[in-house]
């Protein structure tokens, strides 16, 4: 199999969430000299982006997203140590969690995968994360970005509660706040004083990069 063929097959296997085949092809690629970056940026990430696009168009639904995400995450487990060895600096640290009272986490987990794939160090606090736990984790990990995820009308107000908690703890200026989840809009994000919002996982990566870049420029 040529490198192009392998990348194409890896792309296709990820798209349909064929986990065993994704693991096999990732290992095969590495054994035949394909770099971890090539596997990631020329097959895995574009494939998951296509999964997102198909979800948007209504061609895929949640299970298809889930199995594709899980397959990619298995490949990332193999690639992660190798990418670290190459000495590529992480783009930034991203702390994320689903807000208190909410147990939806599929969207958040996909955001994790895409962020990791793009070179972020991701710390995921899980679901039902209370404000004090976010505060504590921000003190401990000093992330560049904190992301709050919510899916219920009743849990969205926790974004503002979390932001208030960060202000009270004197951390608000130290960290970029991003919000997301099915009910969230740019308007809502603006109204609660978040720094950024994204409608999907690829958008979250793009926006986080932009915000980190802007902050770096502002600090110069």
């Amino acid at each position, binding site marked *: 199999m040529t490198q192009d063929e392998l990348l194409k097959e890896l792309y296709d296997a990820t798209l349909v969430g064929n986990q065993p085949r994704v693991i096999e092809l990732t290992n095969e690629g590495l054994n035949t000299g394909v770099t971890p970056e090539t596997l990631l940026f020329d097959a895995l990430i574009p494939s998951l982006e296509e999964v997102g696009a198909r979800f948007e168009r209504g061609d895929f639904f949640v299970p298809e997203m*889930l199995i594709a995400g899980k397959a990619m995450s298995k490949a990332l487990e193999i690639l992660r140590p190798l990418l670290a060895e190459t000495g590529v600096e992480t783009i930034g640290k991203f702390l994320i969690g689903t807000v208190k009272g909410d*147990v939806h986490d*599929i969207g958040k987990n996909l955001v994790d995968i895409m962020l990791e794939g793009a070179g972020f160090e991701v710390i995921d606090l899980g679901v039902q994360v209370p404000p004090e736990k976010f505060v504590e984790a921000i003190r401990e990990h000093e992330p560049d970005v904190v992301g709050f995820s919510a899916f219920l009308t009743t849990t969205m107000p926790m974004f503002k509660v979390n932001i208030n908690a960060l202000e009270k703890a004197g951390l608000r200026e130290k960290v970029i706040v991003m919000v997301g989840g099915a009910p969230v809009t740019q308007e809502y994000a603006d109204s609660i004083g978040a720094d950024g919002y994204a409608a999907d996982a690829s958008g979250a990566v793009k926006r986080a990069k932009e915000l980190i870049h802007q902050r770096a420029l502002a600090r110069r």
Partner: protein
Amino acid sequence: MIDSSINSLSVSDGRVLDIIACGAIASSVREIAKRRGWSVEIHALSALLHDRPEKIANEVEGIASRLISEGKWVAVAYADCGTYGEIDRVCSDLGIGRLSGLHCYDVFAGKTMIEKIFDSEPGTYLLTDFLVRSFNKTVVKELGLDRFPELVWDYFGQYKRVLWLKQGSDPSLDAKAEEVAELLGLPLEVFETTDSGLEYELEKLYCNNYADGGTVKDTEMSLTAGSTW
């Protein structure tokens, strides 16, 4: 996306209220209307739209606009249902009413009770009679658990209990609810709601359309929300 399995109903010779109803509650709406002797015509939309809530408002708008242009009186038997305010935009544009609350759980058990349920255990997965009855189709199949049973943990791994908001007394549902909880690997709790919450909401819609001068105050109605809980 009309759900043809649920027939429309027209009672009595009075003026008919056309109700655009979510498939998950359409049969309850029909039962209540029959019990109360209301003249209604029910247009049931597929309950599966809940998984694509961004489509609900458009579907409702299409049917409601057509009915209004035919001179019909229209009401919407949907709560917000994950449209995040879009259904309110449609209702206010067309001057029609909907069920209050965020979803049918609010309608059946009352908003305050649902808040209490989630406060006491956020990892609660709610069932209604409809969900118990249709679980294989609306949840197992839709979430791909038939094709990928291993995903049950990804979906429900963070949940701590299943709570069935039980409206009716169909004994065949008891065993089904147990089966659902077992499939999800969670304990089952039952909370009897009856359908009076829905009846109360429908009465408001019905009276608002029929009363002279429009709005009828809650106190003028025979039912009191929360009477059974």
